């Protein structure tokens, strides 16, 4: 009899897991809370470091999951999650009962809600937007201010909701730096007349080809990188944004008028993930992400036998890492099911 695995979350990790499991002959139920799969990938236009269109990655994942062994349940959430003699019984919001031999949690991340950093004025000042809002503008090809005019000076704030004790997030979201560099370059491409300033604490360019992109942003595109955290933003009479920031390299406070401010929202444990953690009794860490059973050789394992993690529900990761982590989860599941459980 073939085994049945429930995958919770239809983002990059969940789709990769489902595709790989079905290839191995395992029946999969893929649960997605939204009406379509793809997760955050749907909201991003181009991906770092090579700026390929996100649609290409989506097409790859869709190709993987076009498979009759995968039952896709969209608009579905989980209401009950029980373990009974090595089997899992899961009840969905529509009252459907699923029985599984193993469960993979791939609930991903939520973007930090930037309105929580009220000092940056997101939701208060029209021309303060987030990295996700900017991607939406890139996709439509129209980068404009609220009044329809084209921005001249644009500021990018790094670490919004990351490495910030005051919002309770100590950790580094790791992708915002390179996202900022990518978006700065794109802004300069779209708006050759514009001036772009990045306000950073540290530039964390620890990925393949990140450093190269950072260098390109400075040398080719003339993006200015200012080391210092923006303390607050306010609006002036002429509808510009006045920001206060300390230039820590020059050692002096700085006031700057900008047309647009882009907030690099960090990554947080998703609300859906927190719900699953509560329902299933899964351990979470101090950063609120799921806690893996072992940091080195058990990053897919949870504290409950038969429940595995894939992707950014355990820590911030880029797409490359997410796909690798998802495949590793599949290996763990196959190994687990083979033991006759």
């Amino acid at each position: 009899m073939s085994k049945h695995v429930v995958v919770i979350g239809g983002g990059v990790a969940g789709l990769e897991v489902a595709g790989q499991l079905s290839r191995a002959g395992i029946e999969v139920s893929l649960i997605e809370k939204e009406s379509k799969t793809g997760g955050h990938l749907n909201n991003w236009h181009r991906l770092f470091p090579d700026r390929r269109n996100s649609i290409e990655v989506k097409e790859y994942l869709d190709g993987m999951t076009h498979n009759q062994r995968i039952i896709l349940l969209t608009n579905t959430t989980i209401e009950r999650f029980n373990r009974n003699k090595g089997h899992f019984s899961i009840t969905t919001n529509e009252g459907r009962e699923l029985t599984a031999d193993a469960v993979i949690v791939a609930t991903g991340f939520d973007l930090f809600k930037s309105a929580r950093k009220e000092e940056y004025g997101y939701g208060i000042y029209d021309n303060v937007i987030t990295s996700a809002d900017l991607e939406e503008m890139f996709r439509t090809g129209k980068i404009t201010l609220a009044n329809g005019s084209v921005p001249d000076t644009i500021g990018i704030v790094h670490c919004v909701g990351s490495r910030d004790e005051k919002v309770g997030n100590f950790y580094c979201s790791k992708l915002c730096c390179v996202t900022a560099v990518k978006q700065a370059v794109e802004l300069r491409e779209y708006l050759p007349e514009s001036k772009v300033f990045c306000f950073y604490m540290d530039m964390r360019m620890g990925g393949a080809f990140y450093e190269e992109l950072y260098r390109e942003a400075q040398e080719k595109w003339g993006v200015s990188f200012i080391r210092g955290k923006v303390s607050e933003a306010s609006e002036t009479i002429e509808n510009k944004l006045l920001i206060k920031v300390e230039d820590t390299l020059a050692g002096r406070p700085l006031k700057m008028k900008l047309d647009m401010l882009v907030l690099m929202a960090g990554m947080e444990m998703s609300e859906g993930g927190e719900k699953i953690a509560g329902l299933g009794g899964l351990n979470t860490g101090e950063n609120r992400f799921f806690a893996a059973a072992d940091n080195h050789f058990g990053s897919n394992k949870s504290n409950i036998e038969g429940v595995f993690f894939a992707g950014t529900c355990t820590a911030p990761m880029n797409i490359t890492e997410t796909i690798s982590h998802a495949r590793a989860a599949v290996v763990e599941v196959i190994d687990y099911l083979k033991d006759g459980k």
Partner: protein
Amino acid sequence: MKFDPFIIPFNIGLYFILIYVVTRSVIWFRDLSKPDKLRLQRGFFGIAFGLSLKEIFMESLIHRKILKTNFRLGYMHMSLAFGWFLLILFGTIEADIFSAKHLNAPYKAIFFRFFNPNHGRTSFESAYGFLMDLILAFILSGLFLAVAKRIYSKIVGMKKTTRLKIIDKIALTSLWLIFPSRLLAESFTCGAYGTGSFLTGSLGAWLATFLPAQQMAYPFWWLYSISLGTFFILLPITRYMHIPTELFLIFMRNSGIKTGDQAGTYSEVQTYSCSSCGICLDSCQLNFSAGITNIQSAYLMKAIRNNNDVSEIAHNCLMCGRCDQKCPVGIELSQIRMIQRRGDETENDFRNIYKGYFRSRQTNISEKTNGSSNYNFLQETDHGKADILYFAGCMSHLTPAIKNSMIKILDASEVKYNFIDEQGGVCCGRPLMLAGQDKEARELINFNSQMIWKSGAHTLVTSCPICYKVFKESYYLDVEVLHHTQFIKRLIDDGSVKMNFLHKKVVYHSPCDLGRGSGVYDEPKEVLGYVSRLERSNFEDGNSLCCGGSLANMKISSTDKKKIALDAANELTKNNPDILATACPLCKKTFSSVTATRVADISEIVAEALVGKSIKINNGSHINSIKALANI
């Protein structure tokens, strides 16, 4: 019988404590400032004296406030204090009536039964004996609770009880031994002579059936005397010093003496008046939300008395003032904590001499390197004249929705005002004060005062309770200082602003510095009640919670702050309100990150409810200057 050697320990103890208390009072009086000495003298011959007697009876003996907060704990304190008082009073009367002589030495009353073993044969004598037994039984019932509390504090309805030092334990044991040893001594004596009432008589008769009562009585009289003597001698260096000290505290308070900014007699009297009852422990959010259990006010008082280094304790506090509200003795705990914070830098250093029985004060004037200002870089700005000044405060600049709402309200009301820190102002000074840096704070205060004075304004409105408190208390200004909730209340009352009713369920969180700190409880609630459906919470007014974001605590970790915020937010949003309303930018910021409920300042809710022309926000000064011109 006139005398027996067993009374010696008691006599030594009694005369020691009497001499000690007199000496100590003289030192305290000497250390008072001249005006305070006058206050005390005037109080002694005035109404303060009568008031104090009443308060001493109600609080030091009956323990009315503890009874109100916690009946069992109050009963425990009352039976020991009031019971002992009655025992001494009626014992003295007994000795006076039934002895050959009047005005007997105190030991005659205390050990009456020993010297008059045959007493109690006539009906009047036995009725009096019944009364004495009743009082003893009353004390013993309280003692039973006290012993039980030590073992298991929940018995008296407390989550936590204070931890003791060794010397406290010895004093506690001797206190506990006093009444049982009296009971047994009297019972054996009564058993031997066939006298005594329902308690001593029956117990004595029963004991005499199988024990040699005559021989057994004597050692217990010794034990009774030794317990009393030990207790009296240890009293000055233990928490039981609160018994005599509280009398001074009550009298000083009624005479109008205030704590002030520096350590002095009154703060010392307050420190010694703390009985370590532990009520402050249960009121402290650091305790019940964050599990920090060693910094509460009772421990601070104890550390000061023991001359321990208190800076760690003094700074690990939200300064929310919840314990001030709950303290049954009425000690100004937060103010004493502030004195300790200031003391880090300069001021008074108490030295323990004679093993804790006396302290001498040494004043160290810390050498300030040079007299120059730290804030020379501040630039003066001229804002011109205006009747009303609006000072948003730094925190409101970090929560721009609040300042924008205030601009909207101010513009709608058509008053003439000036937004003085629109381009960013100078700090009000309170964060520095909370850190104990008064000198630096004073520089900022002077800077801001000049600016306010130059404007010629009569009213200063601020959005931040932290600023409000310092403007009210530490600025010497000839302007009326209002928190924006008070100002909005006035605008509503005189019809300057019109508002729609918002059909929203709102719960109000009273910020510490506005509510407990400045006594502004009603206006915020009245404004909210006017525009929305205001619901009550379990934590109102004096009992309101701290959001956990307090600037005052420089020791606590952000994780612990978050625990406090989470607990407080959960309590307030229990009935699923649409909005968790507050009147402080810091509370707003703190709560927003821990609850899914919408958190809003009252000004935002009012701005939302405003009727009429919607003015584009953020261009306040522009519109205002046009209005000002039009008025001319």
